[in-house]
């Protein structure tokens, strides 16, 4: 009997303590929604200390899960850090606020290469957070010749050792880039031509895979695969024979960028947060912890020279010039590309 009373009382106590905490919160709070394990360990504490703003930090595991929760309106998020195509979608659905760049003074530190990108051409809604590329992950023991072109994915020496991605847009990148075309081309003839190339390649492809690519590359079951740089970085940690390269013909560039949704309660504080994250010393700490490429030039300069000069993380300007961001092709064109994809899979 006493024990049960004790239990009930302790529950009541926890609730009381919980409520007390809430009522004391009179400082500004900021709801930040980001990918998991995607910020420096001290960064939030530093921001809170400097500004006196309290951060409620929440994490998501995919752009789609983020979208569902944002759309429900259950939480009034102030800052989001989704990927490029999701930002484009949020802009087209009128879910983002325009940023006031007067409050984001540090925007000047963002490298010009990463301004005015296709998903947000006028930089009205977003500031780049991290970026990377699509490229070739290969095993240096199995592929001894230098790898610098998408061409190698058509080399019959590596028959049955090549893994493509089980995704329309990604798998068409090598073919379109070899043709010297834009990966966002609206010309149906170019897609047909690329399809022909991929059909010819299919005989030597081991498979069109999704998440299992990483395990296959670690287990040395394949010599070459196309992969995103972030994922490639993780995979390379587990097998030292693996290397990553962005082919000279160019490729796709991806971005995660900070933006403010219309639900934001504290736009000024949100802009203060974005400004803070863009400050070179903070961006450096962040990039150093996460290991992805930072769009802040000054921050990049503070990194270990070995990383700065690693073409896998920071490809040369010539190659970057050839790289493009995916943009939404519109419903009609998307359906057309899916049709081509099915033709390839059925070939």
């Amino acid at each position, binding site marked *: *009997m006493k024990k049960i009373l004790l*239990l009930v009382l302790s*529950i009541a106590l*926890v609730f009381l303590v*919980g409520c007390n905490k809430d009522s004391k919160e009179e400082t500004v709070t900021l*709801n930040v929604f980001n*990918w*998991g*394990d*995607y910020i420096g*360990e001290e960064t*939030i*504490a530093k921001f809170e200390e400097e500004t006196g703003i309290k*951060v*409620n*930090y*929440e*994490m*998501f*595991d995919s752009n789609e*899960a983020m979208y*569902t*929760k944002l759309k*429900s*309106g*259950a*939480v009034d998020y102030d800052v989001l850090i989704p990927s490029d195509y999701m930002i484009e979608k949020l802009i087209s659905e009128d879910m983002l606020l325009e940023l006031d760049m007067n409050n984001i003074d540090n925007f000047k530190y963002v490298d010009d290469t990463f301004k005015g990108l296709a998903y947000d051409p006028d930089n009205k809604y977003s500031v780049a957070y991290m970026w990377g590329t699509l490229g070739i992950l290969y095993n240096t023991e199995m592929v001894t010749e230098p790898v610098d072109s998408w061409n190698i994915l058509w080399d019959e020496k590596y028959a049955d050792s090549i893994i493509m991605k089980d995704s329309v847009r990604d798998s068409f990148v090598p073919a379109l880039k070899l043709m010297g075309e834009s990966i966002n081309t609206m010309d149906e003839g170019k897609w047909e031509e690329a399809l022909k190339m991929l059909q010819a390649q299919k005989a030597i492809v081991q498979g069109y895979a999704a998440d299992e690519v990483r395990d296959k590359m*670690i287990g040395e079951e394949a010599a070459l695969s196309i992969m995103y740089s*972030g994922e490639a970085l*993780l995979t390379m*940690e*587990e*097998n030292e024979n693996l290397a990553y390269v962005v082919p000279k013909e160019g490729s796709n560039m991806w971005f995660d960028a900070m933006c403010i949704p219309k639900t934001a309660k504290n736009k000024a504080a949100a802009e203060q947060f974005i400004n803070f994250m863009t400050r070179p010393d903070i961006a450096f700490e962040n990039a150093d912890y*996460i*290991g992805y490429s930072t769009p802040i030039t000054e921050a990049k300069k503070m990194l270990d020279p070995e990383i700065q000069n690693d073409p896998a993380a920071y490809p040369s300007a010539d190659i970057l010039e050839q790289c493009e961001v995916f943009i939404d092709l519109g419903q009609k064109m998307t359906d057309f590309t899916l049709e081509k994809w099915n033709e390839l899979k059925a070939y």
Partner: protein
Amino acid sequence: MIKSGLKKLYMGLVFIFLYAPIVTLIVFSFNDSKSRAKWEGFTLKWYANMFHDPVIVKSLYYTLIIALIAAIVATLIGTFAAIGIHYMKKWFRGIVMNITYLPVLNPDIVTGIGLMLLFILINLKLGFESLLLAHITFCIPYVIISVLPKLKQLTPNTFEAALDLGATPFQTIWKVIVPEISPGIVTGFLLSFTLSLDDFVISYFTTGNGVQTLSITIYTMTKRGIKPEINALSTILFAAILVLLILINRRPGKNNVLLD
């Protein structure tokens, strides 16, 4: 002879399948390398690092608090509900039991989004309170399901006999019924506790305000891969639950929970 050998082999295989992943995880929590592919020497650094990672420590705190309170409240509500359901008329009991089973069979994603929409509708801000309510909600049916069989094992007239001998209804419940069904209650409590620890989908949709449980923290790490600190933390959790179970089963004069 051959038959019993086969039996042992079968048992062995079952245990290997059940425990191999946990053993792997425990072994790699001591691995000096970040990689899960190869062994590079013994270390305790992940155990030390774990307590310096503010995100992990905070998630662990919320996970344990939520699991504990949710399990206690769900056990209280579920036990009384089970006693009520047990003494219902048969046809009505059938209906109530079906309603009880429904959330158990319902996919988590439906429960999660449903609860989220409900919380928005009643204007409850997503955060600690909503997460706790959600966990209590999905734990209750499991408590009812573990307590009911124990009630069925009671001699049907125990309740009347106790009243007959002068106990008040309240005394009858606490001194006669509850001690008899306590193994079921403990099972229900442990089940709720572990289910609450485990849950990701429902938690993801019903939390907010910076409150994250461990499973959310771990799932969302997929972008950059699971940190080795998580192996260390899982090992500690596994050991803690193991000790808890041993203690419960060693209680003098109590029935064995695991064998129930």
